[in-house]
């Protein structure tokens, strides 16, 4: 969920790079950090093992633009891919607005890809978030590998029904294209949520205005609500 601060006029969004262990999640963040102007990003922070593998998360704040007078900030995280870090993934995915799932194109990593995808689904489910509804893009990384799996095979393997990006995080190929796509999608969803919320509040206000202050003798009881007073959107 976005954090909207009307005092500082900032909107913060959280984007998490999930995926296969050693699949290139941290490499994506490093490439983004190296290529962005210092004024547009903060420091890259990492909680890593001595072997420089992500232990908890990598974190990169990016503040690319001002929209409608609000400073729009994206906080990019990557999480470890190994199955044993399920709880860590759950913590980092708390409040997530968008996900990039980085899959490894190496044919030997099929099982690891499937396991990581299942772990991501499980983490989201434990947070009562719907995998099918969250803005999520697949990035098929390491396309520069000789013998990389065909994209169609990967689509089938991961049952992908979403847009995918063929990428090489090591060279930067399609790293920013993936980031652009997920940030645009997150912003679109945010605007839809705000519009629905405004609509809902307007409807609630209208209901309040039209309701008499004292109940009339014929007003339905609580057990049988008046359908005309129901608020839309399931709220």
């Amino acid at each position, binding site marked *: *969920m*976005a*954090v*909207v*601060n*009307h*005092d*500082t006029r*900032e909107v*913060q969004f*959280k984007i998490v790079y999930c995926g296969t262990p050693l699949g290139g999640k941290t490499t994506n963040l490093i490439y983004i950090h190296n290529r962005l102007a210092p004024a547009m990003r*903060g*420091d890259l*922070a990492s*909680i890593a093992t001595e072997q420089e593998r992500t232990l*908890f*998360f990598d*974190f990169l*704040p990016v503040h690319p633009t001002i929209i409608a007078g609000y400073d729009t*900030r994206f*906080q990019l*995280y990557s999480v470890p891919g190994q199955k044993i870090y399920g*709880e*860590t993934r*759950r*913590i*980092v995915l*708390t*409040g*997530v607005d968008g996900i990039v799932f980085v899959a490894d194109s190496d044919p030997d990593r099929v099982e690891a890809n499937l396991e990581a995808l299942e772990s991501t689904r499980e983490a989201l489910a434990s947070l*009562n*978030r*719907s995998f*099918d*509804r*969250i*803005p*999520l893009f697949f990035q098929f990384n390491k396309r520069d590998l000789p013998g990389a799996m065909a994209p169609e095979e990967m689509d089938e393997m991961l049952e992908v*029904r*979403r*847009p995918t990006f063929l990428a090489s995080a090591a060279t930067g190929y399609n790293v920013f294209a993936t980031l652009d796509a997920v940030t645009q*999608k997150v912003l*679109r*969803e*945010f605007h*839809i*949520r*705000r519009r*629905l*919320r405004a609509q809902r509040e307007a409807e609630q206000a209208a209901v309040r205005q039209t309701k008499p202050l004292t109940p009339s003798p014929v007003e339905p009881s609580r057990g049988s609500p008046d359908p005309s007073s129901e608020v*839309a*959107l*399931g*709220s």
Partner: protein
Amino acid sequence: MNDSPSESEPLDWDDVEVSADAADRAEDLLRDFAADAELDMAVIVDRSGGMVAGVASRPDVDVDTVGALVAGAFGAMRSLARELGEAAIVESLHHGGKDTIYLRQIGSRYILLAVAELNQPAGIVRERAAQIAGPLAGLLGEPMEATGSQSAAPTRSPEAAPPSLTPPPNAPAPQSGYAYDIG
């Protein structure tokens, strides 16, 4: 396909909205807290790592990173507590080489971070934090908390009105050095 929410579906999550007034009043509370407990930093972070409000006398601190680490650290501590059979975690205290770092849950959605020099008694930090926890939760639209025996000081009951945000006439002037607002 990755569908957007439509009018026929309920939204499955809510954004955190902090009004200018709530942020200002939260910052006032944090500034008083920082002065009272002689803190170097007092900030409120939401559980996803987003910075909500804060004051600090350390302008060199990267607040975005602090927010991410606070959310991560508190989440990890909560998981550890759960693993060990503890149902809830309200507070966490770290004694370092030169600083005391204190974390406290505020309502269900926010975390308070306080940083004090090591020579500052941690009990004072905890007590002052317990005093502002309820009003902060109320400001941020969270249920007023009842933290029970884990509190260093009694918290206000849900029915109690939050304290006035303006200091009494004889209150000491806020300590200078907390002019740097975060968030």
